[in-house]
C-alpha cells in the first residue's frame, strides 16, 4: 500500500480521520493531514474535490452551513478543536481565514478593520491597539501604503490592498495558523504576485494553509502540497517532489492538465 502522507514532526495542525458531509452528501472522505509549523501548505484539486470543504473543517466554519456534519479530529498545537467544551468562535480566532473575495468590514476604517479582532475581545489599550495595527499592517506589506490614511474606509483601497488588509486583520490576533481560500483568484497579476511574495515572509511568523486552483501558484509558493480528488486526499508531499515526480498517476494527470 502506498503511503499517501509524509511524516511531519510536531505538526502545528493535525487533521485525523476527517469526514465532512452536506446532508447526505459526503464531501470529504477520511482525510489525514499534518501541517508543518512555519510552512505554506497548498491544497489543490479539480472543482468539487473537497479541498475548500476540508479547509473549512480546519477552523470549524464547515459546521455553520445548515445540514453540514463533521467527523474526526483536528488538533491545533496538540489540542482537539472539536473537543468537548471547545468554543468554535475561539477556534476561529486562533485560526484566521482569508477568502477569495476581499471582505473588509465596510463600515470600519482601515485601522478599525485591522484591530477588530482585539476590540471585539474588549481590548481598549490605545498603545496596544496602535502597536498591533502597525505590526500587522507591516507584516501584510501594507503599512507604507496606508500609514497616512488609517482613518479612510477599508473599502476605499484597491482589491489587492483590501486583501492585504484582510491578511493584516487575521494577523492582528497573532494566530498560529491562517487559512486562505483562493486568496488571489479575484486579483490582478501584480497584486497576486505581491501576495505570493508575502506568503514567503508570513510563514516566518505563522503557518499558512492555502487552497488554490492555480498549480503554478502552488508550485511557486508552497513547501508542501496535497492533491484532493472526489473528497479524498490522493497525495501529499514536498511541493518540489509533487510537481516534478508525483507518485500517483492521478496527481500526474491532474497537474499536467489531462483532466480537471
Amino acid at each position: 500500500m502506498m503511503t499517501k502522507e509524509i511524516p511531519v514532526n510536531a505538526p502545528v495542525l493535525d487533521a485525523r480521520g476527517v469526514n465532512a458531509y452536506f446532508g447526505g452528501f459526503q464531501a470529504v472522505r477520511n482525510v489525514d493531514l499534518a501541517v508543518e509549523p512555519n510552512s505554506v501548505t497548498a491544497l489543490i484539486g479539480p472543482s468539487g474535490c473537497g479541498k475548500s470543504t476540508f479547509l473549512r473543517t480546519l477552523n470549524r466554519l464547515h459546521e455553520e452551513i445548515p445540514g453540514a456534519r463533521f467527523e474526526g479530529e483536528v488538533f491545533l498545537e496538540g489540542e482537539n478543536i472539536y473537543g468537548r467544551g471547545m468554543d468554535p468562535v475561539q477556534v476561529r480566532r486562533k485560526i484566521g481565514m482569508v477568502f477569495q473575495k476581499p471582505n473588509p468590514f465596510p463600515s470600519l476604517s482601515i485601522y478599525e478593520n485591522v484591530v477588530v479582532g482585539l476590540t471585539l475581545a474588549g481590548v481598549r489599550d490605545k498603545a496596544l491597539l496602535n502597536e498591533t495595527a502597525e505590526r500587522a499592517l507591516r507584516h501584510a506589506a501594507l503599512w507604507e501604503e496606508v500609514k497616512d490614511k488609517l482613518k479612510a474606509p477599508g473599502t476605499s483601497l484597491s482589491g489587492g490592498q483590501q486583501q492585504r488588509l484582510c491578511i493584516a486583520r487575521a494577523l492582528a490576533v497573532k494566530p498560529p495558523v491562517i487559512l486562505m481560500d483562493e486568496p488571489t483568484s479575484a486579483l490582478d497579476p501584480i497584486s497576486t504576485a505581491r501576495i505570493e511574495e508575502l506568503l514567503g515572509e508570513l510563514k516566518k511568523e505563522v503557518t499558512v494553509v492555502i487552497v488554490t486552483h492555480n498549480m503554478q501558484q502552488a508550485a511557486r509558493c508552497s513547501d508542501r502540497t496535497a492533491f484532493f480528488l472526489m473528497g479524498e486526499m490522493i497525495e501529499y508531499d514536498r511541493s518540489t517532489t509533487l510537481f516534478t515526480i508525483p507518485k500517483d498517476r492521478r496527481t500526474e494527470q491532474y497537474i499536467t492538465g489531462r483532466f480537471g
Partner: protein
Amino acid sequence: MDRSIDAGLAKLKEKLLVMGGHVEKAIEEATSGLVQGKSDRFAAVHEYETTINQLHKEVDEDCLNLLATQSPLAKDLRTILAIVKINTDLERMGDQAVNIALNAEEYLRAPPIKPLVDIPRMADQARTMAREALDAFVRTDVKLAADVVARDDEIDSLKNQIFRELMTYMISDPKRIEQALSLILIARNLERVGDHATNIAEDVIFIGTGKDIRHGGA
C-alpha cells in the same frame, strides 16, 4: 485529451529523431570512407553536420518557448529538460562524426598500416547505442535505456584494446606513429559517441522515473 503542449512535444521528438538519423548516417559515411579508403565519402559527413547544427539551434529555441508558454510540470517538465540535454549530446555526436572524417582523411594520405577490424566494430556499436538510446527516448523505454547504459563499458573496453594494439605498432615501428595516432584519435571519437549515447539513455531514465542515475546514483 489533446493538450496544447502535446503538439510542441511531438515536434521536438521528430526533430531529435531527424538529428539522430543524421548522426548515424554521418558516422557510417565517415567509417566506411576510412575502411574503404574512399575520401570522397567525407563530404556527406559535413553536410549531415550542417543540418544537425541547424536543428540544434531550433530545438533549443522551441524548448525555451514551450517552457515560457506552457509552464510544464511533472513528466512534461522532465521531458523538456531532458530534450535540451539530448539535443546537446546529438550535436556533439555530429561533431565527433566530423572529427572521425578529418582523422580518417589524415590517415588515408599514407598507405594503411593494418587491416581495420576493431574500429568498424566499434563504429557499429556506437551507432547502435545512439539509435537505441533515441528509440528508448521516443517510447520512454526505461529498460532499453538501462541496457544502453550498461553497454558503455563494452565500448570503453574496445577502445582500450585498440589503444594497446596501436601502441605495439608504434613501438615496433616509429615510422607508423602518425598513422597509428590517427586511428587512436578515431577510436577516441567513437568512444565519445558511446558516452553521448549513454548520456541520452540516462536522460530517458530520468524522464521515465524521475531518478538521476548519473555518477553512481541508483
